[in-house]
């Protein structure tokens, strides 16, 4: 599949960008990265804010290269899982660990360390809030490279924009000059530019129109296939999660309700009432008595 057309939004701005440069040649992977595909395991994860238990004893394992979905309503703790994994929420118990197909996990970077943060990247929900309004796309994408001391910034920024289907013409624009779908592509490029192995997606399409959502979902799928990534995706929309993920964890009020495979979910083979209610909700409004 080719990357979707960069044109999103009916009212595309046609501000002239700089002339398109020659496409950057692919770069060799940096030798500081472990060569193998990485997965992630969390055990007994618990997050509390004061007396409020946001997340209670959550455990799951995501195999290397798998795509894992977490579904729930607001307040179910689904975003807290992701925030706890990447260190944005305080852990009061439990552990997070990268895993590989091999038995030994000792050599893998531990959570909180700089290599871990490079390998595990997060994409946030709202592309209108997660990009710095006064930085150009170029600067937004260069910052993670500067933090991690990665060489050849220029070529990488160009390649990252190419990968998410935005041309070089977008490089010196500000976020307000982009549509919602284009902004979410920039947010994705910012995560991908560090060549992570695990990508945490926090409702990556819920702020977007249905048609733009389809484009971003296709892009995510394409990138995962090409780069061999592990996805952990959070959403309140069961259909979106089932589309992208093989395995799904249903959460409610900080607790795990059940874990089902996408195939079981599609065939309505679920155990819990709550999951059934979510499934009903995603099929639309049904008038009483009709």
């Amino acid at each position: 599949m080719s990357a979707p057309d960069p044109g999103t939004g009916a009212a595309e701005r046609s501000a002239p960008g700089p002339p398109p440069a020659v496409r950057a040649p692919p770069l060799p992977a940096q030798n500081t990265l472990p060569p193998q595909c990485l997965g992630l395991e969390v055990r007994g994860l618990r997050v509390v804010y004061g007396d409020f238990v946001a997340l209670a004893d959550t455990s799951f394992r995501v195999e290397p290269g798998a795509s894992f979905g977490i579904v729930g309503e607001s307040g179910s703790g689904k975003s807290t899982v992701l925030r706890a994994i990447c260190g944005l929420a305080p852990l009061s118990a439990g552990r997070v660990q990268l895993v590989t197909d091999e038995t030994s996990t000792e050599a893998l970077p531990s959570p909180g360390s700089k290599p871990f943060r490079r390998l595990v990247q997060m994409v946030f929900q709202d592309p209108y809030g997660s990009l710095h309004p006064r930085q150009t796309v170029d600067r937004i994408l260069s910052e993670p490279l500067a933090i991690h001391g990665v060489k050849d910034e220029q070529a990488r920024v160009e390649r990252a924009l190419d990968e998410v289907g935005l041309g070089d013409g977008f490089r010196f624009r500000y976020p307000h000059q982009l549509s919602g779908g284009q902004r979410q592509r920039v947010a994705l490029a910012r995560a991908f530019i560090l060549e992570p192995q695990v990508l945490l997606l926090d409702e990556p399409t819920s702020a977007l129109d249905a048609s733009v959502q389809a484009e971003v979902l296709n892009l995510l799928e394409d990138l995962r296939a090409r780069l061999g990534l592990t996805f952990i995706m959070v959403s309140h929309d069961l259909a979106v999660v089932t589309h992208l993920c093989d395995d799904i964890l249903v959460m409610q009020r900080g607790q795990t309700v059940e874990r089902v495979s996408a195939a079981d979910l599609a065939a309505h083979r679920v155990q819990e009432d709550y999951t059934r209610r979510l499934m009903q909700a995603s099929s639309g409004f049904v008038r009483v008595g009709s």
Partner: protein
Amino acid sequence: MTLATPPTANTNDPILVVEDLHVAYPNRDGVLVDVVRGVSFTLGRERMGLVGESGSGKSQTGRAILGLTAPGGVVTARRLEFRGIDLLHCSAAQRRQMRGGRIAMVLQDPKYSLNPVMTIGAQVVESLRAHAKLSKREATERALAALHAVQIEDAERVFALYPHEVSGGMGQRAMIAMMLIAKPELLIADEPTSALDVTVQLEVLALLDTLVAQSGMGLIFVSHDLRLVSSFCDRVLVMYAGKIVEEIAATDLANAKHPYTRGLLGCLPQLGQNRHPLPVLDRRAEWAL
């Protein structure tokens, strides 16, 4: 024609007639650019959906009917009539009288559209007393009844709470109560459930459905979610780039003709369907002509 005219008894009379509605905003150089370009429809006692993507002009259409176009915007139309009242040329006082009283609007996000420094009860009472001469006590009683009517179980408690103290679903119920308390004849719901959780969405929709059916008002349901709208409304107008590209009965949606309508329907992932990659909209320039 005076405002005091009671709503005509004939139920076949259209509530709202919109003919060739244009809404334009000046761009940076001061040139007016149309964001709504010649929208026409007639609304009776029915539930009508207005669907499109962001920027298609669906919200601007709803706001123009209510006279809430942002400053700088210019509204023109061949006809814009509500129950025979010319909305384009009526006085500001007349407009104010109708707004909230006879035409009401439910907005998208209760977090931003409720007054954060007033209790929910005070806001419901305010909207009631703006349209009816009532004593404070009567107004309070009716506000509590309205909160009960939108299935808020603990109405007395919610009455005294501030918007930040309630959940999104509760806030949206309160807003619906506020809008329906003056018994409007036309309700414009602008993405009333987009900010809510999926399960709460259905509860709010069911509530809106019951209330609309009971009072027999006209409803314009503005949303980007074609599937949701089609399950809720009687007919659907699909907007693209400021124009209506297709009008279709909700039950007939599967036979939509316009490629844009079909594209909007097709690009949603669905449970039990395995389509990789998802079809995306192939926007053609001629759709916007």
